[in-house]
């Protein structure tokens, strides 16, 4: 079992509304990076890649790709700044994007935990 140098997650945008989503722990696509499934071995990555490609083919999401993340004390944080912005929203408009719906996201995370 090869362990990845950096853990990863899979992300894409929803086909219908374009919203940024991540491949979640139950295999569904989730709207909060906090609920993203984190993969740390080559085998997991392969399986996740196939799941992501399937979702692409089934027209649930558009052009999925993997991102590097930090996974510490249950917190998922994308490493790239671009991906952190996707996970939250425009940095100068805190009233827009996922950060604006943060309270909702916290509830989802609590429900998932």
């Amino acid at each position, binding site marked *: 079992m090869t362990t990845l140098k950096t853990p990863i997650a899979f992300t894409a945008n929803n086909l*219908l*509304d374009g919203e940024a989503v991540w491949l979640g722990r139950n295999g569904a696509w989730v709207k909060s990076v906090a609920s993203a499934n984190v993969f740390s071995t080559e085998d997991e990555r392969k399986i996740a890649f196939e799941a992501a490609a399937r979702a692409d083919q089934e*027209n649930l999401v558009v*052009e999925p790709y993997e991102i590097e993340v930090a996974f510490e004390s249950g917190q998922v944080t994308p490493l790239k700044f671009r991906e952190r912005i*996707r996970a939250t929203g425009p*940095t*100068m*408009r805190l009233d*827009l994007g996922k950060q604006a719906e943060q309270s909702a996201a916290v509830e989802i995370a609590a429900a998932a935990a």
Partner: protein
Amino acid sequence: MYRYDEFDREFVAARVAQFRDQVARRVSGELSEDNFKPLRLHNGVYLQLHAYMLRVAVPYGTLNSSQMRMLAHIARKYDRDYGHFTTRQNIQFNWPKLADIPDILEDLASVEMHAIQTSGNCIRNVTADHFAGASADEVADPRPYAEILRQWSTIHPEFLFLPRKFKIAVIGSPSDRAAMQFHDIGLEVRKNDQGELGLRVFVGGGLGRTPMIGKLIRDWLPEEDMLSYCEAILRVYNLYGRRDNKYKARIKILVHETGLEELKEDVEVEFERIRDGVLKLPDEDVAAITEYFAPPQFDQIPERSDSIEHAKLDNRSFARWVGQNVSEHSQSGYGIVTVALKGTGEAPGDATSAQMDVLADLGERYSHDELRVSHEQNVILPHVRLSDLKAVYDALLEAGMASPNAGLITDIIACPGLDYCALATARSIPVAQELSQRFADLDRQNDIGELKLKISGCINACGHHHVGHIGILGVDRRGEELYQVTLGGSGDEQAAVGEIIGRGFAADEITNAVETIVDTYLSRRLSDDETFLDAYRRLGPQPFKDALYPAKEAA
């Protein structure tokens, strides 16, 4: 301004229906993303970081109040209550749902607007001088030509899958307010000694990774040959433009690698073959389109408005705004108002739906129902009676749009950058906001004088940094935002590409760096009348380098 005829209406309606069908086929799975992408791009639909984005064309920057109101309506109904005016006379909505886009396009069609060819490797929205039909120095209104080009280029079957995007700009005065020489084709309407109208044609200008000033390919083109000549250029480009590398696919690279003379020969051969064919423009057709752009019924009013002169004396802020944001009109007693969407700390080019409604009202009431959007991300009220300026100012002030900074250092162009854009490598808007706050003091701005500051969040240069007097390019260096500075660029008739001044600056250093540049200029200028650009051209980069990188110089 141009009004759709029955043909245009039917065309746009059919196009909306076609896109509705394409969206349905995408959602049903018949079309894969690979197949759908070029189709959605031909209708201005991108997929960005957070959502889809819809780019709507404001052809050659002209719109009426009901069109502006519709943009406000779309922002309210389908988006997050604002829109972003771009450097190509488009407006972008950042949060539409794919399923809503056919409805948005239908709403746009109801006011004679569309999003056709606002992206993709095709002929894009044709742009023009935002002062067209109003400015005192105009030879002829460029918009009839732009409208004819808009029509000809719309779903041109041969030119929808070009090597890369293709941008055309048209101006009609010796002052270039449209960065015409930085377009794939730049056209300048001129009059010859016989009083006939024709065009001067530039080819191969552009910004992006390899900025180039357009080359003069024809000094005089009779107006009747405009479409034939453009078609000849496009055909040569489509056949010979590079397709092996997207960064070398613009026509500027073809011009550069082939050489202007050889390319010109190919173009002229094709042009001679087709010039007397079906694309020759009959005088009466040009006249019919020109008629749409006939000036409004101006009143004969005095050159000076006493009430305004009094108001200026009473109200220093108003006087400042008039001095900075009102330009000379061709008609005595009128002025051209620039509404700078550049309030202190705001995102350049953004307007809320409420602000768009105010602009629509002002256009309707005070500007013969006309508005313009400029490539500098401002809105223009082109035909305002001087005696109405105070009323316009008061309304703008209340709506937060009375920034008296047109053409000054805080009248910044900035692309959406990494806060929205999937291509960006660094943020632009926060840099613009911080600079706008640093230089907020109006006395200081006025002392600095004309200074064009332009910011791009990646090498594609949507923020026109190459032609900023001060240009800023955000890049990603090992995960950190880094900002490179260019100096001495200019997008006007004295076109110049800025030079990189030295190593880049971190996000928390860039504002100080700009301030150092400005302070260097202020201390070295010959007089208050020597602009930043003039001073830079006289001094060269060295004094600015010395100021920016003192340690290095000492070593």
